[in-house]
């Protein structure tokens, strides 16, 4: 495979050499294999979807946790396949989810070389590793940043070394260091800890940075000083039971190795925190009657070091009863705890042991869920950061933990918490819209984008490529999303992706929506949005719909080799307008052009199209599917078309005409 590769920047021999060395490094264990071989059926499915450009399947497969940087038995990675086959959106999605395309590596150069067009190539280049960030980087940066953050105060333990004092967070220490986990479990109320003075402060500082997911390996002075610091670190890493730290410091390899190790470390750190989060935060969530929720009192010195309670209420009009199917998994005795000690003074107040006895609940009329949380992590949301730093009630200290309501369902809150603690954002389509709104409210841009991505990939009944094969607007079985909500949510939360998605979705099923009053309302809303901003006369939604509509039919024409057909028609001197139409679908075709189109190929249909559309307005009611079932090729207005092409062309005109009329009705210029 390698011998077919050529690049502009590296010569073949250089690449081969690099490849050889990489193999050597991998086989000797110095370098982690970035693209491990994966022959599982799931991965094959993912690769197949990448070939076809099936966004939905890809999203589903990724959701299952497949390594998107793996390779198949022909050394193809999903990214290479997608860029080779020219699926821009797929490439973008893969890159967003962490696919690697690094310059100066074999796979990276190969991917660039294979890109179908410049657009994709430029996209790949813009995601070059040096520019793109490790997906976990924001989390790591935040946790490291806690060390320097003073307002609002979140630290709850002070560690004194000989000369300095470090304000640290018990939950981080406990999550990252087994030593601290044991210590703190035994005495959760500890607020200070003294370090043996024989260890240099700088050693401890390095250890702390490591525990807080910081980048260690900066220079540590020189000569004797370095020796002292290193031996101090060695000692500490054994004491704190984090042996990797010392090993890491000793191995400083080249840039790539260092980066791999760093990525690995951050991932491991995240896993620690994720495990801790699950074991402690999620496990200790309380389910209470909404009316009594605010009476819950937690002491400050609790076993999981929480310093705030977040409250989410179940929807009021919840009547189907299965709302707790997910949340009510009673686990009366948290025996599998990381900490062995007693959870002294966990909740007191109205419920003496609510977490231990949720099973006795008698399904309150409206229940709320309380999540114990750590402000330090909530700060990742600007809203929480402002809240805890403000002079309002939430910013003041109180004897018992404050309960802060969050305006969303418990499921959504859990998604948000999981994201804040672990950077993981795996949730179902069902929650996506709610998560989108909540994330918007809390200024969690990344989570918002994830939700939008989820909606725009999974929410669509069929993937984009598949849509092209569905020009007749057949309804989907999986039509679960209220498309109006999606578009409105896109507007509200300013996610352009959703607006686009919605317009496309509607365009491909326009015949279903065009006559609904809700669609009309939506168009009016869209027009209002624009007018509110500045005086222009286009309606964005309609423009988008027109664009995707033309795309829908154009693809169809091209696929069928209509161009050839038109070439034949050229002799008759009447084909040109259609060619124009097909080639420049963006230009809104006027009715004259439409008339000629039909003239070219329609033998079965007579009568002028404008008139036809006018008639169609009132006449469009019959059950199309029923007609189709009869095997008769008919246009949307029920006329019987000569063949499918004719049908398509007529349908296109009919739909355009309908939009025109809609606009006229609304008194808008198109």
């Amino acid at each position, binding site marked *: 495979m390698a011998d077919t590769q050529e690049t502009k920047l590296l010569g073949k021999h250089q690449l081969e050499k690099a490849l050889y060395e990489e193999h050597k490094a991998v086989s000797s264990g110095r370098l982690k294999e970035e693209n491990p071989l994966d022959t599982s059926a799931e991965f094959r499915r993912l690769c197949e979807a990448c070939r076809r450009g099936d966004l939905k399947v890809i999203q589903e497969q990724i959701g299952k946790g497949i390594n998107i940087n793996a390779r198949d038995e022909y050394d193809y990675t999903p990214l290479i396949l997608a860029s080779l086959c020219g699926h821009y959106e797929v490439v973008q999605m893969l890159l967003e989810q962490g696919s690697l395309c690094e310059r100066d590596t074999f796979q990276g150069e190969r991917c660039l070389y294979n890109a179908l067009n410049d657009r994709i190539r430029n996209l790949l280049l813009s995601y070059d590793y040096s520019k793109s960030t490790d997906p976990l980087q924001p989390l790591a940066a935040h946790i490291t940043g806690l060390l320097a953050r003073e307002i609002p105060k979140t630290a709850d333990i002070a560690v004194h070394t000989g000369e300095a004092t470090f304000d640290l967070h018990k939950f981080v220490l406990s999550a990252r260091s087994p030593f601290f986990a044991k210590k703190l479990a035994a005495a959760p109320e500890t607020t200070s800890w003294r370090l043996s003075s024989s260890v240099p402060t700088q050693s401890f500082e390095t250890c702390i940075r490591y525990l807080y997911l910081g980048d260690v390996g900066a220079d540590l002075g020189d000569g004797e000083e370095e020796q002292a610091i290193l031996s101090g670190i060695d000692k500490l890493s054994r004491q704190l039971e984090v042996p990797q730290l010392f090993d890491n410091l000793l191995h400083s390899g080249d840039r790539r190795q260092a980066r791999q190790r760093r990525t690995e470390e951050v991932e491991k750190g995240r896993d620690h925190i994720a495990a801790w989060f699950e074991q402690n935060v999620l496990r200790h969530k309380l389910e209470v009657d909404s009316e009594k929720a605010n009476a819950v009192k937690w002491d400050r010195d609790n076993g999981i070091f929480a310093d705030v309670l977040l409250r989410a209420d179940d929807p009021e009009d919840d009547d189907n009863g299965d709302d707790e199917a997910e949340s009510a998994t009673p686990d009366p005795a948290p025996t599998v705890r990381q900490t062995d000690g007693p959870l002294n003074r966990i909740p007191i107040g109205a419920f003496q042991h609510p977490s231990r006895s949720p099973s006795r609940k008698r399904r309150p009329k409206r229940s709320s869920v309380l999540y114990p949380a750590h402000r330090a992590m909530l700060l990742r949301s600007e*809203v929480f950061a402002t809240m805890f730093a403000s002079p309002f*009630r939430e910013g003041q200290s109180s004897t018992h933990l404050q309960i802060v309501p969050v305006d969303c369902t418990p499921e959504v809150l859990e998604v948000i918490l999981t994201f804040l603690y672990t950077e993981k954002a795996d949730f179902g389509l069902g929650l996506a819209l*709610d998560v989108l709104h909540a994330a918007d409210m809390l200024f969690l841009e990344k989570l918002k984008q994830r939700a939008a991505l989820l909606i725009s990939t*999974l929410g669509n009944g069929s993937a984009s490529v598949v849509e092209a094969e569905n020009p007749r607007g057949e309804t989907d079985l999986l039509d679960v999303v209220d498309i109006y909500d999606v578009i409105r*949510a896109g507007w509200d939360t*300013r996610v352009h992706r959703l607006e686009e998605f919605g317009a496309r979705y509607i365009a491909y099923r326009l015949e279903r929506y065009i006559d609904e009053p809700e669609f009309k309302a939506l168009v009016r809303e869209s027009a209002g949005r624009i007018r509110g901003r500045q005086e222009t006369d286009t309606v964005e939604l309609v423009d988008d719909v027109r664009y995707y509509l033309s795309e829908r039919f154009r693809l169809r024409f091209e696929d069928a080799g209509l161009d050839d057909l038109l070439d034949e028609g050229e002799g008759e001197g009447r084909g040109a307008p259609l060619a124009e139409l097909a080639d420049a679908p963006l230009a809104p075709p006027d009715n004259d052009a439409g008339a000629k189109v039909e003239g070219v190929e329609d033998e079965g249909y007579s009568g002028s199209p404008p008139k036809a559309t006018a008639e169609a307005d009132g006449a469009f009611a019959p059950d199309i599917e029923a007609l189709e079932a009869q095997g008769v090729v008919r246009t949307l207005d029920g006329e019987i078309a000569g063949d499918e092409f004719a049908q398509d062309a007529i349908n296109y005109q009919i739909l355009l005409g309908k939009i025109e009329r809609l606009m006229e009705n609304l008194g808008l210029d198109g």
Partner: protein
Amino acid sequence: MPIIAAGTMANAKNQGLNGADVDFETTWGILEKAFQEIHTKNASALSFEELYRNAYKIVLKKKGEELYNHVAQFEESWLGNTVRVEIVRHLTALLMLGEGTGRTMNTQTERREAGERFLKSLKGAWEDHQVCMGMLTDVLMYMDRVYCTDHRQPSIFAKSMGLFRDQILRTPVRQGSPTLLQILTRIILDQIQMDRDGEAIDQFLIKANVYMLEGLYDSDQEVEDDKLYLRTFELEFLHSSAEFYREEGERLLKESDAGTYCRHAKRRIDEENDRCRSTLSESTTPKIQRVVEDELIRHKMKGLIEMETGVAFMVENDKFHELSLVFDLEARVDPKKPELTKAMHKLITELGTNINNTAITASQTPAQPATTEEAGDDAQGKSKGGSAKAINQQTVAALKWVEDILSLKDRFDHVCKASFASDQAVSTAINRSMADIINAFSRGSEYISLFIDDNMKKGIKNKSEAEIDTTLEKAITILRYLSDKDIFETYYKKHLCKRLLLKKSQSIDVEKQMISRMKIELGNSFTLKLEAMFKDMTLSEELANGYRSHVRNLGDVDPRRMDLGINVLTAMTWPLEAFRGAGEHEGNEGKAQVIYPPSIDKVRLGFEHYYSETHSGRRLTWQTNMGDADIKGTFPKSKGGKTRSYDINCSTYAMLILLLFNDLPADQSISLEEIQVRTNISMNDLTRNLQSLSVAPKTRVLLKTPMSREVKAGDRFSFNEGFKSEYIKVKVGVVSAGNKVEGDRERKETEKKNNDSRSFAIEAAVVRIMKARKDLSHAQLLTETISQLSAQFKPDVNMIKKRIESLIEREYLERIEEAPVASYRYLA
């Protein structure tokens, strides 16, 4: 997975979009109440989450604009109805004062306290507003991010700051009265005035108010340059400061001396700097500094320097510290220090002109007899004593001039170093002024050369090497300033020539040292001829030795044969005319050769023969007038003694005269005319030599009849058998071969010669330039010529023009007729 989600999807719709329909009025009611609480500092019980959620919902419901406007209205009415009233309450007493009539009625303390009360209330209002708006901004975060960004509205914080400005600062207190901003400005200025007058004020209070002005902008577009502080207060402040300092400066100039003024100005500048730091804004520092500098320094510097106690006074009284203050002040406003350098220049020129005048008078007063002496050559003998003295005085004047100039320079160098931190601009000015006065003195070149001459002959005796070094350095220092170096060269050559030939120099080493210093200072070409003189001296010595051994080798050693010491001098290098008597200026080249007695002539011819053997084609001209001779004179026994014999050292002429008496019986005498005929020595030299031989008491080897001081025609001379001397060696001096200051005629001659040589130099330079450039405009040619010659002298433009004219005549150049500016072309 997505399939199950249908149910919750519906929920989302209900909840987030249509379900909980937000009633704007109710929600706003909640918010308004909370805002009220916040403004009355009662916020601790409020829930951030609740307020945020409500504001968020309103914005999400597309009611952002309404919310924004409501908040703005709320703030406006709060500021206008509550805050302003409170501030105005503190104002009533002050308003009186503000109208200006109160100035005298209120004591300063009362005024200050009233001002402080007002400032305090305003500061309080501002700080409260800041805090409250901070909280409101927190709560309305979603509105700021979403509504304000989308609709290009200023953030609610910025908006409310604008409201504060409009409601509090810009609204008149009551109809027709000034706004709070104007009052505030006036009060601050008043307080600053108090501060300047030395009264203690509350700086932090003012600073807090300045912070406020800095935090506000002139318009709602928060442009950095439009800060209210810059737009209103600072302008007023600078204006009133300028006025204050202008008055103060004028008063001080009248009332106090320059030193005090400087100290005061410096203190004021520091004070203003401190004030900016502690009371106002750092950004004002450069501006107010400029104002103070303008008013106290830039506009007053001239007056300050010209004060009675100004710079001249300071220099005179060695007030170095005060001078340095003046310097610091001027340096602050202008790196070139024009006023100070002008003052220094004036001062130096004044003092220098004094020195020059003194030197001229000193040289003229006693020059009276000298001129008479020059007028009458015949009367020379009589005025001998007086003229020697006069000449001496001239030398003294020259030495004094040099010393004075040097001490002047030293003094100002010291001032420059001690007070002006050896500033480049000032020291340049001093140097230029020194050059001016040195060159303004017409006899400068001569005096410098004389100074060196004197030192070479006498001054350096018994001096250590270091002292000699300083002396030489002094001479070089002055020399550096001299522009007409060619004239100096002429004089120096003359003086050097005499020192060398008459062996008057104390040390040849020092002479050579001097030459090498000049070489470093003035360049190779300058010392070329001087070095050639030294070379001639060395060569001559070798030649004489060679000749001596040549004679010895001839074999027949005649014991009576004379020994010959000789200096062969290159005619062009040596200024031999220096030795010609003052009366023999007409070229006596053609005059008849002196008649040598045969014994001498033999030696002469012998040497000529020897010389032409080694150096063919050269002509030797004997300069008998410069030679001297050692002869042994034997005198017969006197009464109680034995035969005396003396070694007599005399000039060659004297030797020739004395030799005449060898063959003469002791009692016979020869007349003056006879001597002249027999020796063919010019009458002038003859009388002078005879005078020394027969009149000077210590060397009266001849007897003259009649005995008188002057040698006159018809006098007769005879051998003085009774000559006695305490010493074996007798030196017969020759009257007035002196090389003292030149007489007027000599000077004219020197000048003329100098001008001639300059003409050649100029012509040479012009031709050189034109040869290289072919075509050149007149102006360019002039500049280039001047620059080429500047190392030697400062050419006179007229002279250059004449030379060019002459070159055109001689067809070296021609005028280019068609050229737009006068130009020349070189003719090959």
